[in-house]
């Protein structure tokens, strides 16, 4: 799932979850996280997960996209479960519910709240330079994404990477990434010059939605 697509849903979505303030949503998510950390009963965490699932299913949200993204960390927990001896069903459920409950809560927030609102809400808790780097990272994703899409198109036109020639394909992809990095660094230089011209002195200002 591309970050750019998630951001689109967060900004242009129109569900009741979108209308709740970022601060309230983040507080709820951290409450859920605290429960996941402290509670060792799979039924309690399982109930929270099904409540979250119901919220997603009965909202005007891209349901399957949210659920699929939230299930992603399950793959890594399955490696963990596979490494356990004599694992009971209850403990397995506990691990699974802990994983998917926390990730579903975070993914739901990110699908209904733009990164800008989240950074703004965290401004009071995080140092300003960190919030500024987060904001610049977010902005840079869109600049680089456009370049990457153009590069992908160019690569496909000139012959896409093939499994038959793995080393050659890796080289083609790497050269494209190398070009992307050079473009990115040049963009960062331009960005800094632009920021300086607009009076940047260490703090970024951004508009509320």
């Amino acid at each position, binding site marked *: 799932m*591309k*970050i750019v697509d998630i951001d689109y849903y967060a900004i242009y979505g129109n569900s009741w979850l979108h209308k709740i303030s970022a601060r309230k949503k983040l507080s709820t998510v951290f409450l859920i*996280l605290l429960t996941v*950390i402290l509670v*060792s*009963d*799979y*039924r309690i965490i399982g109930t929270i997960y099904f409540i979250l699932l119901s919220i997603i299913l009965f909202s005007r949200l891209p349901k399957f996209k949210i659920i699929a993204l939230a299930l992603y*960390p399950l*793959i*890594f927990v399955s*490696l*963990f479960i*596979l*490494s*356990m*001896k*004599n*694992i*009971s*069903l*209850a*403990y397995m459920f*506990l691990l699974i519910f*802990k*994983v998917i409950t*926390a*990730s*579903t809560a*975070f*993914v739901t927030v990110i699908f209904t709240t733009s990164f800008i609102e989240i950074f703004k809400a965290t401004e009071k808790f995080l140092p300003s*330079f960190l919030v500024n*780097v*987060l904001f*610049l*990272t*977010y902005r*840079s*994703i869109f*600049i*680089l994404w456009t370049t990457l899409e153009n590069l992908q198109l160019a690569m496909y036109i000139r012959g896409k990477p093939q499994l038959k020639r793995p080393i050659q394909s*890796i*080289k083609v*992809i*790497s*050269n494209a*990434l*190398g*070009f*992307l*990095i*050079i473009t*990115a*660094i040049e*963009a*960062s*230089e331009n*960005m*800094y010059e632009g920021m300086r011209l607009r009076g940047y*002195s260490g703090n970024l200002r951004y508009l509320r939605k």
Partner: protein
Amino acid sequence: MSHIHLPDGILPVWLWLSGYAVIAVYFVFFFFRFRKSSFNKKFALIGILSALMLITMSIEIIPPIYHINLAVLSGIILGPALSVLAIFVVNIILAFLGHGGFTVIGLNTIVVSIEAVLGYFGFKLLSSKIKNIFISAFLATFIALFISSWSTIGVVYSGTHDMDLLVESHNHSGEHKELIQHKQPESFDIKKFILLIMAFSAVGWTVESLITAFIVSYINKVRPDILSMKGSTETE
């Protein structure tokens, strides 16, 4: 698999709090090390390299288990101190995407930073001894990924001691005995975990090292000044 993809609520509190404590120490160092003006200059670069790491993470080598993250390359370009900040930012955004837990951001940052820092020093050392920049970058990346994977295993292993306690308290709560199929104690088989991690990682290390080496060679041909930027970053 250089990244701990273990989510929230599994690793013991003392372990993930230690991760955050190490990162807090780094921030104290960061405040004293970098003057505001010199940091402002690198500010946009950190942001753009963090974005680059996030974008390249969508390139999966063994879908969906292993993806590249270009942490070593970020280490080579940004230098060890600034790359840790970039990695921390990447991990915060990834946590919101459900990719790694929020509580393990500190630990994830440490593990991935080990890659970046080792990659930086490895590349610096090897490129002074070996003339071929491709081989230097390949070896530096491969060694960094190998050691960082072992640090992942180390973190998981440290966490599994408390996990046994969690399992015990969970089993003896007496509320769901119907689901417990046997009375033998549950334990974490670290050897099996190492085997699983190594089986997935071996191919990933090679491919990521090749990609990094090709990228470094390309940059060295087109904009060699970028590879020497690390020096300016560190001295400012």
